[in-house]
């Protein structure tokens, strides 16, 4: 049963972290600095998590790098989430297929 105890602690802390700000911050934040900070946060977080992690996600760093390039070009040209993701997967699958 100790495992379920661990799971409940994990779930409780994770939920509080997620729920406190959206429930406590009910009014717009006035500070221009904080508003700007929060505006930049998602893009920076996602960029940090993408690189260099994408190079290690695949069997070969080369196919990870190719997926990065394909993803950036596709998104730049206006592909949506789904198309960009499929493009990245396809290039990895094809490259690793031919590399064996």
């Amino acid at each position, binding site marked *: 049963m100790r*495992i379920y*105890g*661990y*799971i409940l*602690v*994990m*779930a409780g*802390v*994770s*939920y509080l*972290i*997620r*729920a*406190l*700000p*959206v*429930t*406590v*911050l*009910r009014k717009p*934040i006035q500070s*221009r600095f904080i*508003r*700007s*900070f*929060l505006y*930049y*946060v*998602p*893009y*920076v*977080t*996602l*960029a*940090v*998590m*993408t690189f*260099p992690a*994408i190079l290690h*996600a*695949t*069997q070969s760093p080369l*196919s*990870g790098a190719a*997926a*990065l390039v394909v*993803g*950036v070009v596709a*998104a730049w040209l206006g*592909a949506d*989430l*789904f198309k*960009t*993701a*499929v493009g*990245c*997967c396809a290039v*990895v*699958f094809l490259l*690793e297929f031919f590399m064996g």
Partner: protein
Amino acid sequence: MDRKKQYLEGVRDGIPIGLGYFAVSFSLGILAKNVGLTPLQAAVMSLLNNASAGEYMGLTVMAAGGTYGGMALAMLITNARYLLMSCAMSQRMDPDMPFYHRLLMAFDITDELFGITIARPGYLSPWYMYGGMTPAIPGWMIGTALGTLAGSVLPLRVVSAFSVALYGMFIAIFIPPAREDRVIAALVALAFVSSWGLSVLPLTAALSEGTRTILLTVVLSAGAAALFPRKEDAEP
């Protein structure tokens, strides 16, 4: 836009997330099995947590036989970025939206669902987010359970291809605004370089990936906010 349309668009954008989750949580399930969790326990853990780095960390604490307090602290650190994401979401919610939506939306603030939800213009739609959660939650939960049950049934090549789906989605979120806004473009480039730098420098490479992400997010976003504060009319 009406609820049904928002919901269906959420489902559409949530499908690649669910597929990516399935592939990633599979490896989480294999780890859970090694720590001694049953498939049911692994499924419950994933259903209630929805956090890749957080669950990896949690399993590590379990394997080491840590205390509940240690577990709580580990969760606080690995999941701290959700606190920032939740703050950002709070600023984009309609003040007239019923309160229970806040409680429900908070349940599944993940990197990916936060990303697609915040990328939409105007007030956040709870229905769009619920749409995203519909394929994402089962994908994550079932993937973990199957990983625990069967080990690696999927060929390695397929897992490898699946696993970039998540990054593809990240890219599709930060590239369009980077194209419009030079500050964001420079931030993305700086984030890539510094993230790579911290992962190879001896002092910082020892930090967990989650800690490095928090550190860089706070430093770079604060720097950008100080040097390039947003014009107020840029808000929705």
